[in-house]
């Protein structure tokens, strides 16, 4: 099973409604190739993110993602999914099982470790969409006040609490908390707005 470009697109949508999930599962059971591609397009980025979060291993992420999508497609082709309206939960469950299988074969279990931002970005599949997201994030961060950027850095990268950041920056905890929330919201909303073109 080949993951097509755009599989990991940030505009990928999930079939939210049970009927949509059921319809997609049914189309795959009917061996409709376009439906299989749609499944991969809709879920592979989520599976990849999940595997990276659990394993922190880019190589494993690619392989396990491939295995998950293959297992899901096979199961759907054979009609093994009983509750077709819960397709997303089935994909998630399959991914979790295969990740656990993978982790059992490894000597260490890094499940308690936070996701490494640099590792994740370096290992996410390259695509025009991911490049654009990073470019837009960079642009949105550039528009922030430098103190707000420091607060985000200390919070998101260094994992410091508002009280610790407050001491470093000579602010109160409440101000740090407020500025962090606003800066994060402002940045994500700006990225969202820019991405809509």
């Amino acid at each position, binding site marked *: 099973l080949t993951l097509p470009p755009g599989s990991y697109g940030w505009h990928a949508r999930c079939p939210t409604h049970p009927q949509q999930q059921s319809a997609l599962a049914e189309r795959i059971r009917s061996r409709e190739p376009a439906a299989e591609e749609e499944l991969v397009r809709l879920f592979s980025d989520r599976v990849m993110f999940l595997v990276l979060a659990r394993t922190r291993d880019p190589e494993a992420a690619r392989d396990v993602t491939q295995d998950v999508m293959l297992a899901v497609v096979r199961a759907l082709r054979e009609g093994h999914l009983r509750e077709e309206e819960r397709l997303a939960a089935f994909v998630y469950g399959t991914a979790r099982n295969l990740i656990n299988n993978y982790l059992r074969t490894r000597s260490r279990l890094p499940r308690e470790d936070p996701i490494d931002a640099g590792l994740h970005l370096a290992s996410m599949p390259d695509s025009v969409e991911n490049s654009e997201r990073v470019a837009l994030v960079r642009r949105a961060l550039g528009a922030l006040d430098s103190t707000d950027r420091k607060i985000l*850095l200390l919070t998101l990268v260094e994992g410091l609490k508002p009280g610790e950041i407050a001491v470093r920056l000579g602010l109160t905890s409440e101000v740090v908390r407020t500025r962090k929330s606003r800066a994060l919201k402002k940045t994500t909303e700006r990225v969202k707005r820019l991405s809509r073109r």
Partner: protein
Amino acid sequence: MSANTTNSSKRRMDCDRVAREEILESYLGGRLSEEDRDAFEEHYFECARCFDELQTIQAIRGELRRAGAEGFEAKSTRPFFGWVPAAGLAAAVLLAVGVWLWMRPLSPSGPPEPTRSQPPSRAQLPEKPGPPGPEPTVTPEPSLDQLARVEPPPYEPVTLRGAPDAATARFQRGMEGYRNADYRGAVADLRAAAELDPDAAHILFFLGISHLMLGQDNAAIDRLRATIALGDSAYLEDAHLYLAKAFLGRKDFAAAETQLKKLIQLGGSSSGEARRLLRQVERLKKRSD
């Protein structure tokens, strides 16, 4: 996309709870309990909004880690740098410094003008600020040709898994030519890519730049205008800047000024650069009147 709820876990997970309890940050920081982590993961498999925000916050973490809090100066926020890995960025910075040395005005007490070779085509990076201190009154202003020169924004290819779609394949081929300064070849492929995907800002932008590098100002203007017409994209600011350069190439000061003013109005990372260029254009226009 409406808010989603995932009920299968013990504690209900929905978009409101994700926002209220800062679940995204806690998930990325590995601070969720196993139960909440599972519930959130199941949730984002069905919720486009939360997954989109999760990816964006992860990208924010990555960029902050890469650049630090102070690493978002105007140049580093230029959208095309999103395509450039560290080595490419370093090369671009070196090139910018080199061109600044070449372009910088002579100071009466300064060193003699460095020996230089003429850059290819209409190459010139946007003006860099000069060293601090009062400007000598005898500083020579850049000529129109100098202001109109452009340096093609660097591009590094991305690797896609699987077979690319037709538009992406043509774009990739075109950008191969672009990287090798084969702008004629790039135009042919990028034009084909644009026909396949007419709403792709990255294709139109680099097609416009390729035309510009060939001195095909009219075609460049059309493509850059089309990039702008798509609305707010990662290429919007650069499209205005290069469009201004294209108009300068045609000695159309008014149109160039309009583009620079629009760029300033955007209030983005290129607005300082646009202000400098606008001042230079205005002075040049006065001199030529």
